[in-house]
């Protein structure tokens, strides 16, 4: 029965999206436009050079396109379904999260998992099309594929906790719009969505290594394109796993404190 409830809760986002075909069309169009533009941009940047920042043209294009596709893994689908923490705080419906025999932290995790799996289906579909069209290069070997997938899993786990901490901020500030804007910008810049981190100056790369963002995308994508060789991957995976543990403990602490602050309703 617990598995059933997990399945039901996890599928809320995919079901909501399937009930809204215009939203799905919008996502498909956005991905198409972004992939075409990003691929054109990076081909253009490499038109007069062979290798920059240790990346060849096909590596850079593959990295950039995969970053676009990966950004679809975790979108704000819950917002359309009015099931984000900020919306529940605004409408006073957060109380229901505390009135069910399913703890809010487990409910949140299941919803995020469903959203992530749904996003993964989109990303995978886009990847296969790009691969067939020759826009992205396949991974170097089966071993690279395996390590990449493991690194991607850890990276998404880190991203989940970053988003969770941003949502938990609502229990104190009632809203997290500014925090989300900062996080999205930092995430896109410091994880390599805008441009691979290898293009930034050394001090920037060093600074990024102390933050969790680069663990979300830069590490798995660099493994995929071979910029991080398999011999160096173990250390990177350990850093990612370290971030998972640290952020898990931190957000667990925040959940406990948040439970004392469910005061969004009138008295």
């Amino acid at each position, binding site marked *: 029965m617990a598995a059933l409830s997990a399945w039901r809760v996890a599928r*809320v986002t995919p079901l909501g999206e399937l009930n809204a075909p215009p939203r799905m069309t919008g996502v498909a169009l956005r991905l198409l436009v972004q992939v075409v533009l990003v691929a054109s941009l990076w081909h253009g940047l490499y038109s007069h050079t062979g290798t920059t920042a240790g990346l060849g043209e096909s590596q850079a294009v593959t990295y950039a396109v995969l970053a676009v596709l990966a950004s679809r893994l975790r979108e704000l689908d819950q917002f359309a*379904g009015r099931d984000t923490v900020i919306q529940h705080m605004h409408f006073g419906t957060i*109380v229901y999260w505390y009135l069910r025999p399913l*703890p809010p932290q487990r409910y949140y995790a299941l919803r995020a998992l469903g959203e992530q799996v749904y996003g993964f289906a989109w990303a995978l579909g886009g990847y296969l099309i790009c691969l067939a069209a020759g826009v992205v290069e396949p991974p170097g070997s089966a071993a690279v594929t395996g390590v990449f997938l493991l690194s991607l899993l850890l990276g998404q786990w880190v991203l989940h906790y970053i988003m969770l901490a941003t949502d938990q901020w609502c229990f104190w500030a009632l809203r997290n719009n500014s925090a989300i804007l900062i996080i999205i910008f930092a995430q896109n810049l410091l994880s390599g969505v805008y441009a691979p981190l290898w293009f930034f100056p050394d001090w920037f790369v060093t600074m990024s290594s102390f933050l969790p963002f680069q663990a979300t995308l830069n590490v798995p994508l660099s493994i995929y394109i071979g910029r991080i060789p398999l011999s160096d991957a173990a250390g990177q995976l350990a850093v990612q796993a370290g971030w998972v543990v640290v952020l898990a403990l931190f957000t667990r602490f925040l959940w406990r404190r948040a439970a004392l602050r469910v*005061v969004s*309703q009138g*008295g």
Partner: protein
Amino acid sequence: MSGSIEVHGLSRVFHTTVRRPGVAGALRSLVNPERVAKHAVSDITFDVAPGELLALLGPNGAGKSTTIKVLTGILTPTSGEVRVAGVVPYQERERNARNIGAVFGQRTQLWWDLPARESFAILRDIYEVPKAEHAARLKEFDELLDLSSFWDTRVRHLSLGQRVRSDLAAALLHDPQVVFLDEPTIGMDVVVKEQVREFLRHQVEQRGRTVLLTTHDMTEVERLAERVVLINHGRLVLDGSLDEIRRRFGSTWQVRATLADAHTDAVALPGIALLRRDGPQVVFGPDGPEAPTVNSALKAIIERYEVTGVAIDEADLEDVMRNAYAQAGAAA
């Protein structure tokens, strides 16, 4: 113990920061915040028996929602003891969750993007309700609330009345012993209101559920509640029957009687004053704090005098409550 609510000496204090007026005041509040303690509820004691419907009344800001939030386990009391179906709600939230259902006015617990029936299925699995039991209960609720006419529509497209009916069903699908309803019919039209009242009556009388209802709709109170707890400024003002509340605060009834013999001497009766007389027409009203209810007064008048006709002007519950809130406010 099963299905009962016990509240003893409940107090809840919130500590808030006072924001001083103006820009300078706001800056001062930033540098030197002034913290004040707000007593949302103070030393409240009452019980609700299993299968009883109690109306928890009071003006806005009286402390009703805070009381409900403590009873549902969302808030921890500053002092006092609370038990709901034998469980201390804020200590055993999950166990308490299985015993209670709650509807908070227009705040829906349904999933906005999904059809209402899909929300029911999610809740069924969360509460681990067997499928056959769930189907039977849903059928019963459908008969009472006419859910099937809209339960395949996405919640975002439902009208307020349809949504609240769905929310009521969602709150009761796991067969809770105790139900908390915080202004469940606010903003609904009279037809749907009556349908919801009928549903609640059925849940109390036929299913034996304990219901704690807060509302500002006095018709609802009159139709559903036999007992009322009135709180104001966080303090309990009255715990008694509707008759009692009328007797204490509803001193505006008048009985106009036409005497069979216009020459009969009309005098005041115990607790009943003779207000005026015009030939055979005599007007009686309540006299003092021990005045009887209008029904008792009517009985006493008919027993004492031979009358050919009577008319009653009675303050409705709305007037009574207005009076009660005003007196309770003055006392506080």
